[in-house]
């Protein structure tokens, strides 16, 4: 009874979750380059930490590759080990 009395002026929009996908599988990228600074920035947060799979949607296979290439980039001072306001 109580529910039916509530009326909304606008229909409330229920958020539909976006389907996550692996960008490597979709784009057909086979190799993750550790020299590409701008590309690696997509998989790193503002402090330079590697983002988890649940955030980026990368598949396990490529998450592993992303992680190694980020670590290589860190060694070569292409990416920082600890950063601040990276993006």
């Amino acid at each position, binding site marked *: 009874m109580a529910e039916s009395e509530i009326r909304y002026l606008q229909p409330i929009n229920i958020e539909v979750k976006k389907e996550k996908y692996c960008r490597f599988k979709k784009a057909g990228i086979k190799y993750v380059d550790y020299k590409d600074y701008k590309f690696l920035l997509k998989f790193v947060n503002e402090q330079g930490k590697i983002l988890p799979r649940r955030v980026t949607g990368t598949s396990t296979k490529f998450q592993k590759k992303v992680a190694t290439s980020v670590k290589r980039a860190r060694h*070569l*001072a*292409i990416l920082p080990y600890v*950063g601040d306001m990276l993006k």
Partner: protein
Amino acid sequence: MVLTKKSMEYGFVNVRVSVFLQANFYLIKTIVMSTRYETVFILTPVLSDDQVKEAVTNVKDFLKKNGATVKHQSSWGLKKLAYPIQNKSTGFYQLFEFEADGDFISKFELELKRDERMLRFLTVKMNKNHIEFAEKQRNKAAEASN
């Protein structure tokens, strides 16, 4: 009795053949298949342009002297480092792509380590996807310059 003896003999022969084949296989592997590697190193920004060139040619000569074939080289110039190394905030980046035997790498890295001009280096074994990627990128760069 006879049967078992015979089977033993066969077994013996088989073992010999397989060992021979394996030895051959390794020989072929060492002769024909040399692996492709990629090395990136950073030189100190203190050097002048000529000194950088000299350091790079030194490395290249070392590679050639030890039977490695240089497939590609490129210099990225003076770049800013993401964090200071040896109190330096910039460095000259240089990339080498070469084919060599696996046991050469330790020797090569030791040589780089001894060089005081090197801030950092990294050697990576290239798989087929990596090689394909590098070649594609090179072709793209060549097209852009044309």
